[in-house]
């Protein structure tokens, strides 16, 4: 394996988000992907509650569903309505690329009750390439918070290439804090909750 592959993907905003977590304080992280050993290992260094919602599991069902309301209901089934502890960090990996605009909006709506001003949402958005793997695969962080992709689908589909302004329209509850164009053409985002509008 080439060294650059071993080294993984430097994702500065992911690193920033992890470095911002206080090891002395309880932190709550929501992982929207399939849980991987690297994620558990990374956050085991913290007093961490790690919530896992397997969003990839329902992507095929969402894709087959034409009605936005039905898709919203399917997304809602993933969330435990009893969970109320505020989130410090939400890990979307590259999953937003595999959701329609309505679904992204619905997903963030479901997250809103657990957001606090300090919550950060991390996402990787296909930006440069018109094509992307047909399935999201896995992103696995290492101990240095660098990301390693695995099970990358060789079949490709059209990429939605969500633009920053479009994402702001889709997710009005959030504002981009920083964005970085990564070497592999993915745009890395760190979002924060948008303050309530002053009346």
């Amino acid at each position, binding site marked *: *394996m080439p060294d*650059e*592959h*071993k*080294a*993984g*993907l*430097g*994702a*500065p905003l992911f*690193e*920033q988000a*992890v*470095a911002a*977590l206080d*090891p*002395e304080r*309880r932190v709550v992280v929501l992982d929207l992907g*399939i*849980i*991987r*050993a690297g994620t*558990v290992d*990374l*956050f*085991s*260094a*913290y*007093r*961490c*509650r*790690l*919530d*896992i*919602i*397997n969003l990839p599991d329902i992507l095929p069902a969402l894709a087959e569903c034409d009605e936005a309301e039905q898709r919203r209901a399917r997304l809602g089934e993933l969330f*435990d309505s009893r*969970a109320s502890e505020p989130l410090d960090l939400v890990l979307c990996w590259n999953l937003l690329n595999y959701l329609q605009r309505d679904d992204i909006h619905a997903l963030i709506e479901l997250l809103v009750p657990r957001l606090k001003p300090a919550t950060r949402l991390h996402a990787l958005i296909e930006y440069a390439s018109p094509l992307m*793997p047909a399935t999201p695969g896995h992103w*696995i962080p290492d*101990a*240095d*918070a*660098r*990301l*390693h*992709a*695995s*099970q*990358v689908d060789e079949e490709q589909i059209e990429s939605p290439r969500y633009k920053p302004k479009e994402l702001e329209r889709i997710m009005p509850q959030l504002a981009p804090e*920083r964005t*970085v*164009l*990564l*070497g*592999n053409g*993915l745009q*890395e985002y760190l979002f924060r909750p948008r303050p309530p509008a002053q009346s």
Partner: protein
Amino acid sequence: MTDQQHRGAVIGPSIQIDGTLKGDEDLLIQGKVEGTIELKKNSVTVGESGEVKADIFAHTIVVEGQVEGKIVGSERVVMRKSAQIRGTLIAPRVMLEDGARFNGTIDMDPEADAIKSAFAGQSAKPSPPQPQPATPNASKPGSSSAGSAERH
């Protein structure tokens, strides 16, 4: 883990138990258990053919099969790659093998109330692990690129 490798009690694949299990020896579950399992000073292993719909309280818990419920380990919980878990997992040390399926919450906070209350009065609770957070070199604001991705 095979029955021969295991030292302790074994619930075989044909056994189904509804209720509360308590004891002072290690336990391997290859059958079906519903209810509550309390072996707070010992280890519980849910084998590959094990199907548990129960809250499990033990010193060490290893899951190779299916569990639905709350899993509370005062020392550690291990999820093997064949594990399928839905529920809440609470332990100061958690090990997961890639391939394990988990849906729910993993609470690794050694100060979590659930551990304190479940194992109140016991000395099995270990000292909290020393935090060794990743100290990545976050890039300066305005940075515009990073390395390449590994894509198999």
